[in-house]
């Protein structure tokens, strides 16, 4: 039943103060013929105990990644989350507050956002970060919209090695805008410089690159930056922020705008959301940036403090002329990323990256040292790679592995028909050698079994 404090005595007194006799009269301004004349057709109310039992029953039907042996990636990763992240983010003063419209009563959130922005600029090598967007795909889309507005050009060049769901999101937005998306093939699992060179010209607003790309491979980003800049185009790089303890910062190889999915920084898998859209850029683009931005200032007594700033970009002031329709940020997820990075520090982030790098290379070698598996591509990679299965049917191979408690990889055929014999594997710092060996052995067993379990 509802969370309501009013007693019947309270209600009577309140109705009397209003000057009406019944709750029904409260709704006098809703015309009678527009009112619902029956109860909503919903299941009956549950007490906390019944609800808990019901939800446990539902949740109990699932196999959580943490109880499986999880090698799934593709933009959502099973990284370890230190207890301090959950403990601190669960404080009600953080999660039951809202957008800091009143800075005097929101310095906690505002300082967190300022620290978050600082951490993101330092990780990416950009000048400015906003206080977060919805997720990696929407952050990428907003980055592209910034580039279109900044260059007043209408063509966007990207690659099939960029996350297919990010490209699908862009296509959805582009269906209604005067802009064109050119998607170049990535036949060797990465961008091809010659193809790119032929595809960009003085109408290209931006080049959109993912680093490491959707297949896990590390792209030749500096060369791509040079090609983009030579044509006067903006370079947008989508990164995995967790890789930046090991890999070069996008700002150091020429990125102008960086977008990212921040889930890997301390947020749970949560079936894809809520996640953290990271967006950072060079100084020149700041007035075109969407979303909340926190700035430092002073109060009347000269004390350092923080406020939301540069708000003339935003919809509540500019309405149809705003840089975007975005209103809220993902405050709680930005908080989690800030705590995560504070807990890891420079050494921790580097170690996580190195563990991912070493373990993923061990896993690839372990799996592909024997037929029927082979690496699909030869590019250097960070924590993900694509495996080709020479004869086993990938979908049923992965389904059988799941039934044995191993989430062995993500099938690629749905997005890439030409890769229907391939799957994407992610190896995080959480996977032990024993788990990797189990995974490799299981896949071999299933693939070479005379009577596959799915037959």
């Amino acid at each position: 039943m509802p969370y309501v404090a009013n007693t019947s005595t309270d209600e009577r007194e309140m109705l009397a103060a209003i000057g009406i006799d019944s709750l029904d009269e409260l709704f006098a301004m809703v015309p009678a013929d527009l009112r619902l004349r029956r109860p909503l057709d919903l299941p009956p109310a549950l007490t906390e105990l019944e609800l808990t039992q019901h939800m446990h029953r539902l949740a109990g039907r699932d196999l959580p990644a943490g109880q499986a042996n999880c090698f799934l990636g593709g933009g959502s990763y099973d990284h370890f989350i230190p207890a301090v992240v959950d403990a601190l983010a669960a404080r009600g003063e953080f999660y039951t507050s809202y957008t800091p419209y009143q800075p005097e009563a929101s310095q906690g959130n505002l300082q967190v956002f300022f620290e978050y922005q600082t951490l993101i600029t330092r990780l990416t090598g950009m000048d400015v970060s906003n206080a977060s967007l919805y997720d990696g795909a929407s952050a990428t889309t907003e980055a592209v919209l910034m580039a279109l507005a900044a260059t007043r050009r209408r063509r966007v060049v990207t690659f099939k090695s960029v996350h297919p769901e990010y490209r699908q999101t862009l296509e959805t937005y582009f269906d209604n805008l005067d802009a064109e998306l050119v998607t170049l093939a990535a036949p060797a699992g990465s961008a091809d410089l010659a193809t790119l060179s032929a595809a960009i010209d003085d109408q290209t607003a931006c080049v959109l690159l993912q680093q490491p790309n959707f297949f896990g491979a590390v792209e030749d980003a500096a060369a791509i930056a040079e090609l983009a800049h030579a044509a006067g185009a903006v370079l947008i790089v989508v990164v995995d922020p967790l890789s930046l303890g090991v890999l070069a910062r996008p700002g150091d190889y020429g990125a102008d705008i960086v977008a990212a999915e921040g889930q890997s920084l301390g947020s749970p898998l949560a079936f894809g959301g809520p996640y953290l859209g990271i967006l950072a850029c060079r100084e020149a683009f700041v007035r075109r940036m969407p979303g909340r931005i926190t700035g430092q200032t002073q109060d009347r007594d000269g004390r350092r403090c923080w406020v939301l700033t540069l708000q003339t970009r935003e919809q509540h002031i500019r309405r149809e002329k705003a840089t975007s329709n975005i209103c809220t940020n993902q405050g709680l997820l930005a908080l989690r990323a800030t705590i995560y990075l504070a807990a890891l520090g420079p050494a921790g982030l580097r170690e996580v990256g190195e563990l991912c790098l070493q373990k993923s290379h061990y896993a690839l070698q372990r799996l592909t040292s024997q037929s029927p598996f082979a690496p699909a591509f030869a590019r250097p990679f960070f924590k993900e790679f694509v495996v080709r299965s020479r004869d086993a049917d990938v979908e049923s191979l992965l389904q059988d592995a799941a039934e044995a408690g191993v989430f062995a990889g993500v099938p690629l055929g749905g997005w890439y028909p030409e890769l229907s014999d391939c799957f994407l594997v992610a190896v995080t710092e959480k996977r032990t050698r024993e788990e990797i060996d189990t995974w490799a052995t299981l896949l071999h067993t299933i693939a070479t079994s005379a009577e596959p379990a799915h037959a």
Partner: protein
Amino acid sequence: MRNRQATSTLFELSRPGRRAARLPACDVPVQPLADLLPARLLAAAPPDLPELFEGDVVRHFTNLSTENMSVDTHFYPLGSCTMKYNPKRNERLASLPGFVDVHPYQPVSTMQGLLQLLYELQGLLAEISGLDAVSLQPAAGAHGELAALMVAAAYFRDRGEQRTEVLIPDSAHGTNPASAVMAGFKAVTVKSTPEGFVDLADLRSKLSPATAVFMITNPNTLGMFDGQIAEIARWVHDAGGLIYLDGANMNAILGIARPGDFGADMMHFNPHKTFSGPHGGGGPGAGPIAVRDRLAPYLPAPVVGLAADKYFLDADRPKSIGRVRSFFGNTGVLVRAYAYIRTHGPAGLRRVSETAVLNANYLLSRVQQLLPVPQGPRCMHEFVASASAVKAERGITATDIAKRLLDYGFHPPTIYFPLTVREAMMIEPTETESKETLDAFAAALAQILGEPADEVRAAPASTPISRPDEVRAAREPVLASPSSTGA
């Protein structure tokens, strides 16, 4: 108790050599980095992050949290934001591994429980809205608006109709016109009457064969139900257009009236408002949308389907606008919304709205003795008072009153919105506040209005900071802490 020493940033607290998290040693054979990655792609230096001891991390963020007002600690009548109590049971249930530890790409056979919940939620939202089909994908209310307008655009394209305009009342949230433009439409403003109702003559003059959608917030941003809606819907439908309902104010009409029954063709829900999802310091929200049957084929994909007793992700929707984000949606927020709706049932949800409207009208009856409420003596779940007379007579603005309320331990109302009321103070108490709290708020407001103007203009006096210099923040932007390495 607040720790007044604790205002250093993470970067100021950092000391070389300190650390919190430690990682296990590598248990696979270690290869030299240079063998795995080309040198030019490697980080030139360790990331420039602060170095902290774990106890300091905990103290830092704990102390920062105490500098926030929140629903857990304060009355938070922020109009239009529905800052109701966020049930603790929902937090615990949403964190069950079977919900929170599910990878978006794990086989659907291993997540039947979660998919059942999401499938049922689609049905619950359809019933509450009086509409037919639901997409849970959009990440926030504004994102839902955008997705629904894209659905409308696809629908008209499919029918070969050239409709280019979205009509929006001047009292609407700023996201409405901004979303219309992002969906490729021209935003056309429709005037409101002083009660915030749609100016019918102005609407009529702007309806045309170019009208694609009329967006309406009902109850509107003054907390008034626009009873003209049936007539408006008739006109818009006669002109070939669609009605979009901004569901920000659904907390007023749960089980009382359904948007689908009063003419809406599409709407979004704000589960973080209506269905008690915590606001998280600015998010995450979610923005599920509900539409009529004829618009259903265009909804974002995937939606959850059920066939032969198995739940599945239905992405085979040829007319779908496609995706508006990655993965399924803001599942964590949706699980909480499901728990909330199941806690209430049909009678409980109706009681939520009855009480939200009772509390708002009661507070209105108290506040109108202190400040003019231009819309009149009645409201739905919220109302808008005006400080313009106090400003003219005594030089006290809505901002001044808001700041002084902080000293009395109340989060202020939304101020300066809607734009149609001068010195607006938009007050939404929600159903989860007691009569004593409402009385105390009204008493504080009365006391503030009796204080010397200088004292009110000097407020707040009790918060961690006094009023910040926002002009300086915008003129000389400092958007990140200076780098320790000077890089």
